[in-house]
């Protein structure tokens, strides 16, 4: 520590004169939203950003990067002088009674944009606006109108993560003995609300600080409880979330627009959340007829929609017999995985030493409807045949940039499930898919690929490149995906080109002025969107309204620039559909750079 300090001091001493001459200055004021009141006691933090977005709008702050803070006085003013030129993020935080604010933010729940400070620049007149957080409270009762205690109350957002509709829990609390709850520190915006009897979720949950984005994603095994019928028969039940204002169907749930400082009241009755569960049982065997012991079974909902992904699981016993309990009627994928009949190593077990024989990997994906179409009983005597996974060799052809002779980069090929359901086992069980090295064909192999639907992913594609084609025999894998149902004889033929197109653009408002911090999404043509999530790209306009895309595969696209839209919402066709006419079509060709002007889509300022 001491050594580090002195080293730092030495650097500062050497750089000091130059730094002072070329440094920048930043000045501004923090205001309370909707008022002309300045905010005191606000911590304003200037953080050096690496400029590399890890996901839309969320920037990875470089670890241990210089961060400076300023606490405002009664005038709400802040000032940073002697700032090293570069790209920064500027945040303001107060007590948790206020949402965090950021430079460039267009709504209380929106994210900001980078602040670029040039050498010698003095940037003044920056205003950061702070919004009060909001709360939701109410009373929860059970089927007999008695207070329901220990009920898990969740405020969540529905978001799109890598194109998958996902529920992110922003805040969760428990009801008390009177059935009362209070969800608080919610950043104003759109929320969904649910109630679920406890022991369905971990009942010790940390509170989250006010957060404009992000939240918790849950996956877990079902709660199973016993209950006696009036006749004295014992059956099993589990609990479904009850969504506001009183529905078990998340699609019928009514979103809540929370305003700054608001306390919304919402009461629930959780009586109808208990539901009988079913079970499936059977045997797993090998093609020769002998049982396969120790397989793992996971039953993932085919269309997960709830606020948590509940995946009933089981392990087959030494005779290959299994029973999976706690199943709610629905459509599922049953995933069966096995390591050659060996028990799966416990979490934390060190990997086997290199060179030790790899167990034979077996996986199967079985679509299964349980309890649907008036069928209300358990499924017993399922016979599942395990098939050894296929080993698929792959080969990449690299087309270097026109006019250059770049050496091909190192690629790695992997698989993801399609759809990539939460709770599903990894597409590739083997951890031995190591990076390809030139001339090492033995490692260019996808091992133990079982039955199911997959997409092929390729890492190592240059920023200026794109995946031109993926073929397996006559099948177009890039367009249609990889559908595995048995052994594979062909080689996966992949073409990566370094000749992608580029797009330079500017976002303009209705006065044709540059519009900063717009969210720009580049989407493939409407009929291609569902299958080609890999073509989606997004960015934000900078302070001059400009944006840039590279590595764009040739083709026809539509580009949208929103004033304010939740990250990844453009993956939802229902969100994009009303804006379809406000998008701008653009044709991208290999190597070429297209230039474009895009009109911003303003946020509709109406309260529901």
């Amino acid at each position, binding site marked *: 520590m001491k050594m580090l300090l002195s080293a730092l001091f030495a650097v500062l001493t050497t750089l000091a004169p130059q730094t002072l001459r070329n440094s920048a200055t930043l000045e501004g004021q923090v205001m309370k939203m909707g008022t002309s009141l300045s905010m005191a006691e606000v911590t304003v933090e200037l953080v050096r950003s690496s400029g590399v977005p*890890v996901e839309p709008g969320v920037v990875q702050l470089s670890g241990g990067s210089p*961060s400076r803070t300023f606490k405002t006085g009664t005038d709400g003013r802040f000032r940073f002088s002697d700032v090293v030129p570069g790209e920064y993020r500027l945040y303001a935080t107060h007590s948790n009674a206020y949402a965090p604010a950021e430079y460039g933010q267009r709504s209380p729940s929106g994210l900001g944009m980078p602040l670029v400070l040039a050498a010698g620049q003095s940037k003044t007149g920056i205003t950061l606006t702070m919004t009060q957080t909001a709360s939701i409270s109410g009373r929860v009762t059970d089927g007999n109108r008695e207070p329901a205690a220990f009920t898990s109350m969740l405020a969540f957002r529905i978001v799109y993560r890598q194109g998958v509709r996902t529920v992110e829990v922003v805040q969760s609390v428990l009801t008390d003995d009177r059935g009362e709850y209070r969800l608080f520190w919610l950043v104003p915006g759109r929320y969904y609300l649910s109630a679920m009897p406890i022991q369905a979720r971990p009942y010790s949950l940390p509170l989250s600080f006010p957060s404009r984005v992000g939240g918790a994603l849950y996956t877990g095994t079902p709660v199973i409880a016993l209950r006696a019928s009036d006749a004295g028969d014992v059956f099993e039940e589990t609990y479904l979330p009850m969504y506001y204002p009183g529905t078990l169907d998340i699609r019928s749930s009514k979103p809540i627009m929370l305003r700054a400082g608001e306390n919304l009241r919402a009461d629930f009755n*959780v009586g109808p959340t208990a539901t009988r569960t079913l079970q499936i049982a059977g045997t797993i065997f090998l093609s020769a007829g002998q049982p396969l012991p120790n397989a793992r079974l996971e039953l993932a909902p085919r269309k997960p929609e709830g606020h948590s992904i509940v995946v009933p699981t089981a392990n087959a016993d030494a005779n290959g017999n299994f029973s999976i309990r706690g199943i709610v009627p629905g459509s599922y994928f049953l995933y069966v995985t096995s390591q050659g009949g060996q028990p799966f190593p416990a979490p934390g077990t060190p990997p086997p030493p290199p060179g030790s024989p790899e167990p034979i990997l077996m996986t199967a994906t079985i679509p299964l409807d349980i309890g649907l179409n008036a069928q209300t009983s358990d499924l017993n005597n399922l016979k599942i045949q395990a098939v050894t996974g296929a080993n698929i060799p792959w080969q990449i052809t690299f087309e270097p940039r026109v006019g250059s002779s770049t050496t091909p980069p190192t690629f790695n090929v992997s698989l993801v499930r399609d759809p990539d359901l939460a709770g599903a086992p990894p597409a590739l069980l083997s951890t031995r898919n190591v990076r390809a090295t030139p001339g090492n064909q033995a490692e260019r192999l996808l091992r133990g690929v079982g039955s199911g639907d997959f997409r092929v992913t390729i890492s190592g594609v240059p920023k200026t490149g794109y995946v031109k084609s993926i073929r397996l025999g006559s099948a177009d894998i890039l367009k249609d995906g990889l559908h595995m149902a048995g052994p594979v004889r062909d080689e996966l033929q992949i073409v990566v080109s370094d000749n992608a197109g580029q797009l330079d653009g500017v976002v303009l408002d209705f006065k044709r002025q540059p519009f900063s911090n717009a969210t720009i999404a580049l989407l493939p043509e409407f009929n291609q969107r569902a299958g080609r999530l890999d073509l989606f790209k997004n960015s934000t306009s900078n302070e001059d309204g400009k944006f840039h895309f590279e590595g764009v595969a040739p083709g026809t696209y539509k580009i949208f620039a929103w004033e304010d839209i939740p990250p990844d919402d453009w993956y939802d066709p229902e969100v994009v559909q009303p804006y379809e006419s406000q998008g701008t079509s653009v044709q991208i060709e290999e190597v070429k750079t297209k230039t474009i002007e895009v009109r911003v889509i303003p946020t509709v300022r109406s309260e529901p």
Partner: protein
Amino acid sequence: MKLRQLLFFLTVLLIADGAHSQQPPVALNGVVVETGTNRPLPRVSLELRPVAPAPVPGAPPVPQPPPSAPVTSARYPGLTDENGQFAFRNIPPGRYTLTASKNGFVHSDYGQRGPNGKSMILAVSGGGQLPGIQLFMTPAGAIAGHVYDSNGEPYPYVQMHARRITYPAGQRTLTITGSTYTDDLGAYRIYGLPPGQYLLSAEGETPSQGILPVAASLAPPLPGAVVIQGIGGSMGYTADPANQRKPANRSSNIGNPVYFRTANNDRDALPIDLRPGEDLQGMDITFSITPRVDVTFSGMSNSPNFLLTISPNPITLRGSSPNNMPRAVLPVGSYVVAATGTGVGADASNRALAGYVAFEANPSNPPNINVALNPPVSVLGRIALDGRQDADPDLAKVRIRLRRIPSIPGIPVPTVSTASSGAFVAQIPIEGDYVIEVLELPDSLRDRYLKSESVIHVSGQPLNDVAIVLGARAGQIEGTALGETKVAMSNVTVVLLPDQRNRTDLYKSVTTDASGRFRFEGIVPGQYKLFAWEDVEPDIWYKPEFMRPIEERNKAIAIVEGSRENIDVLVIPLR
């Protein structure tokens, strides 16, 4: 996506499958009522659960199912109707526990007369009509209020604890019973609390892992359910980049309690008496973060590795001299640090070393605490049998303990085995007064008792001639616990208290059997009093304030060597 936090938890509730009998199943009926009022309670959840058969002496232990054993259904859920009645049909004969739970009430087991009672096994035999079962449930209480900062503003996100003062073996001990945190309005509510006396405290920011509710009154998700598998899963978390630095602020302000109303230590706290079902509102606390002091430690150079225990609210720190001397950031206050290690060098080679220092953590003068580690003091002695000159070979089976008063957390308590000659050697870690306690007596010496002086003082010098005498015949008391109408009461607590109340080693307590009988053996001669309660908090009889109002109810009993007393005791009713 940035995975900021990954929690993994998996709890599978396992059921030991009871021994299934081939006898025909029977029906079981009963009622659940409120303790004291006998009001029938509707919608009470019941769980009947088989227990392993009673162990047969000499038989091999019953194998336990491995943790990975599948969940079985050998549990029976039940629910009371509007009249508090419940019925289980088709129950195989066997031994069971029966538990009742309901929101707003403390869990209750079959056999419990009140919230502190012992649960009993319910033996269900085949054939004939079984008598109705009665269960008693005590309403749980709540403590609620607000926490404010020194400016009178609401203090959100403060962790709140309700602690019971318990007296295991007569030692005053604080045990957290219920916890919560304040909301954005500074409001809190700790609920589901069994009646009793509590110390309430506010203790800095809520830990990031959250806080559990009171387990003693946790009801099933919906009335009538028995959860057999629950709470499994994982949680991935992404956070606002503006908040990414905030968690660092979270953990730093934990562990400096402010007790209700304004005390900064539990001794000065105002105890809160919570009656059954009481909803205490307005229990407000003004909270501020206690300044912290950076305390460094030195000394201990004669032990390469050592362990420090700082109390109260024990913290243990490992260190090694001279390069890894521990430090601690402590709230302002009074502390004791105890150190233990293993010596090196000519005079201390491989010996267990110990030492302790009391100190004040004061911000104006951050202390450096020098702890000297000293070798133990040898205490040599002999145990003799009163009335006998010869040594008994069974003396080798006697085990005694030397317990320091007051005890110092972190300093080991020496236990000593004797030779067949009765000779023993004890290594006493630090100076002080030590109580001699007889832990184990072989069957042949079962009626013996500690007759000689029970306290020895150990200074820096070795003791060579501690004589312990075991008297020949300890006293015995047996009798019946009687209720208000002189009816014998089963499953009540009977306690024998010595007149020398500081002699915690002489206290004895038992529970009456099915016919209301009790029996105490091994009573050291002296003056005693006998008390019985229908329902009483365990060990609360060590607390003088609890005993004072009832002290004169019962007469003293003089026990001499060989006393065989037969005394009935009146049971103090529940309310």
